[in-house]
């Protein structure tokens, strides 16, 4: 029996590491991560912020939407290293520290805007981001549907989410 040759193994990974430093929900964080780590995985795996959900990982479902420097963006279509130096907000920062819901969350609760809840964090971050923009809101059905067009929900049929956006606008004095 011939002796099997052990294949040559690389002594280190080709997967380049990089140090990233960003602010997440008001807290400065610094980690060494792979350059190919997605921001969604950074939030969930490195920081344990599992409120940011991951659905499709190609930008279609909207579950992973977070605020990047105040603007809604897909954390699955952003590398952690691209967020270097940025301020990121996730669903964990939306309710007050004492548990009081944000008006958008309150509106989802009142209007039954969620069932399984998987899409809800992305929905809420997208809506919160839009409410933070100074441009007037279009609260017609069409306008709200356009706002929600980048977030998929497979439970509700959307009608209660549309009602929740309108209710949130009332609660926030944006009608």
């Amino acid at each position, binding site marked *: 029996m011939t002796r099997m040759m052990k294949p040559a193994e690389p002594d280190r990974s080709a997967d*380049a590491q990089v140090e990233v430093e960003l602010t997440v929900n008001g807290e400065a964080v610094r980690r060494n991560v792979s350059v190919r780590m997605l921001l969604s*995985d950074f939030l969930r795996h490195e920081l344990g912020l599992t409120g940011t959900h991951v659905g499709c990982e*190609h*930008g279609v479902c*909207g579950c992973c939407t977070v605020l990047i420097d105040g603007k809604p963006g*897909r954390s699955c*279509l952003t590398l952690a*290293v*691209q967020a270097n130096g940025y301020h990121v907000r996730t669903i964990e920062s939306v309710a007050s520290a004492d548990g009081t819901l944000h008006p958008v969350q309150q509106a989802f609760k009142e209007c039954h805007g969620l069932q399984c809840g998987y899409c809800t964090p992305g929905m809420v971050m997208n809506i919160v981001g839009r409410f933070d923009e100074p441009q007037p809101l279009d609260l017609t059905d069409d306008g709200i549907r356009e706002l929600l067009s980048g977030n998929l929900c497979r439970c509700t049929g959307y009608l209660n989410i549309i009602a929740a956006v309108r209710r949130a606008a009332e609660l926030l004095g944006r009608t």
Partner: protein
Amino acid sequence: MKPSIFGYKAPVTLADAISILASDPDAVVLAGGQTLLPAMNFRAANPSLLVDIQHVDGLRGIDVGADHIVVKAMTRHREFELNADVARVNPLIAEVMQHVAHIPIRHRGTVVGSLCHADPSAEMPLLLVLLGGSVIAQGPSGPREIAAENFFQSFLTTARSQDEIIVEARFPLLPSGAGWAFDEVTRRHGDYAIAGVGCILARDGEGRTSGVRLAACGIADRPVRLRSAETILNGTMLGASDLDAAVAASAAAVTQPDDINVSKSYRRRALGTLIRRTVATAARRAHPAGTAS
């Protein structure tokens, strides 16, 4: 899915960015990443090196000049859409931008990135072709200006060389008094267009039409001007027979073969409908130069 292994560089000067790009034939420029990253997550794109240009000096912002609007490489779609100065000198742009994907994508994706990706169904390339704009490509030997119709060469293919970075795009202003319109047919809001049409035209006091520009996306391997239709409509009162003739003359511009969603004949019908719709809207918005709208 996750991207495969790649290298990453984030230069802060344009010269460094260009020399990094020139040093590796498989290096790819990363701007907003809203097309590149999904392609990498699917492993449809496997660049050896990403050159992240977001920290490069001088690549941000929008400048409205006397002839055109300069859009720098890192300008996001949403900035272009909501810029009040842009809306004042070229209201067509906001109308087009609302059809580009969804708000969270528009916050991250860049206008120039979309031009460089050159998807023939995308709205940004159509807009640049319709307006007769250009891009500035900066390479190791300096900058050069490339006209829109020369820039888009084929499906996902542009005149940009591997070692060049498109540092800005130039979108001309609308002529004074010109009417404008854009519309598209998609299966869902925010999808790439099955067909899309943009129209610019002027009308005199009697309603006679001049300066017609029509361009379409989704129908060929690149965005195309519909020159036969433009010629037919120029000088007319936009009567029913003029529009019929313009639509008939545009059918040959549809060269995309049947695909999983639609047939070629469906695309031709969609194109005809969009030509009628956008010409009518543009005509309604046009007013003789020097008069109020």
